[in-house]
């Protein structure tokens, strides 16, 4: 795409702008962006999104056959280019490719559960188990049964 301003260089900066009651897209090259002050004096430089590319290249060999998400149409080969998924459903569609990738990024391929909540639950289970032991030691069996049921209930609800 050619720069809207100099009409010479390849445009590398893209953004929307509101002109005369209409939203228009601006495509400008790096040199014109510098003239407009997009980069000047500051530290921002347009990234190549090299991270996304590194990551997808890591887990997705070029030889694999292409496929696409049935929901949004995003192709696996496009994901390899930009490192971005198209919709929530892509996570299922590309699951087999994403799992090894997640392992390389995060060291794991599965979620631990929204923080805090499971831990608090575990703490509570831990505390209850202690109470249970004490109750058994004191031979308070009715109390022990009540605590046992409570632990069961907590554990059952704790899958997520």
């Amino acid at each position, binding site marked *: 795409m050619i720069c809207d301003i100099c009409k010479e260089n390849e445009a590398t*900066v*893209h*953004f*929307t*702008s*509101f002109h005369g009651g209409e*939203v228009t*897209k601006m495509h400008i090259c790096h040199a014109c962006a510098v003239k*407009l*002050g*997009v980069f*000047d*004096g*500051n*530290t*921002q*430089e*347009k*990234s190549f999104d090299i*991270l*996304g590319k590194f*990551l997808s290249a890591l887990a997705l060999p070029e030889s694999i056959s292409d496929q696409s998400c049935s929901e*949004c149409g*995003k192709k696996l080969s496009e994901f390899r280019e*930009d*490192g*971005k*998924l*198209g*919709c*929530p459903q892509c*996570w*299922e569609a590309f699951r087999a490719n*994403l799992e090894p*990738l*997640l392992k390389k*990024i*995060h*060291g*794991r*391929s*599965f*979620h*631990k*559960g*929204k*923080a*805090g909540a*499971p*831990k608090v639950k575990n703490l509570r289970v831990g505390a209850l188990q202690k109470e249970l032991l004490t109750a058994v030691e004191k031979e308070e069996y009715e109390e022990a049964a009540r605590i046992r049921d409570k632990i069961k209930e907590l554990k059952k609800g704790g*899958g*997520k």
Partner: protein
Amino acid sequence: MIFANLASKSSPWQNTDSGSLFISTRVRFARNLAGFYFPNQASPAAQSRVRKKVFEGIATVKRWKDAGKLELEELDITDRKFLIERHLSSYDLVFTERVAGLVMGEGETAGIMVNEEDHLRMQVLGKGLSLEETLEEASSIEKEISAVFDFAHSDDFGFLTSCPTNAGTGLRISFLAHLPALVMSGYMGEVIESLARVGVASRGVYGEATKPLGGFFQISNQVTLGVSQRDIIEKLKAISKQIEDASDKALDDLVSKRKTEMEDKIYRSYGVLQYARRISYEELINRISDIRLGLSMGMALPLDGERLNNMLFLAQPAHIEERNGALLSPSERDEKRSEFLRETMG
């Protein structure tokens, strides 16, 4: 240019204690609406619908009732740069083809980017090193907003994000640290390498894809999946402590071996800030960095943390332009910057 008012005062989250290495803390959650394509894949019409839905939904949350809502396409280039300088927006939100928006909370400590890489990027900024408090605040914001929207989530992958690097918790915690002693002593390379090995990233002042200047580094967790919020915060806490120790050691070493060289450099920087008639922002950051280092060494310089912050923050290019009310050429801006410095230094 619509931010002239904001452009004459520093953000409240900046640490005024010049003896501390830590400037600020940032916590952000990435979330997407269930049933909608991620911003990059969505058509402009669909992007608009999401923005509208998010703006309307957020307005029903008490905390955000009176929050400012910006439609990015209406802003000029200076305004967009200003939002980045203010740490209210990423580069990718303001210079994008997507229909993007920004919700600005009161006091500039909380904000929500709409249609950045994900539908919602909720962020909270805290003063100095305040990992726990800032996370607590961000979590309560996330909780309030999650009551309004149905977020895309799976049991296996946690919150579903556009990029797999944010999966799971969608949580990125970072702190902005000033580490000139590590840079000067030559240890920073080793620090960055070691951080990367334990899954911690170091970036420039304005975050992703920006280069570090003046010894200011943004340090953040890389791993978001398979860990809890607690794991992330404990890791960053431990790292911040280690960085502080390493920096103290590097500073002691510098002072014992290269004291005169350092004092010379710092006084020269003071002279430049006081007498220059044109100064670029890049040079300014480096000079301020020297002064900040001098203050932490106990040098008697007639400047304090608050004024240093103002000099660093309010002299950014878009800040100068917003106050001026009209575009400036780079050299005009450099002149205005040196005028501003002289006023501030008195």
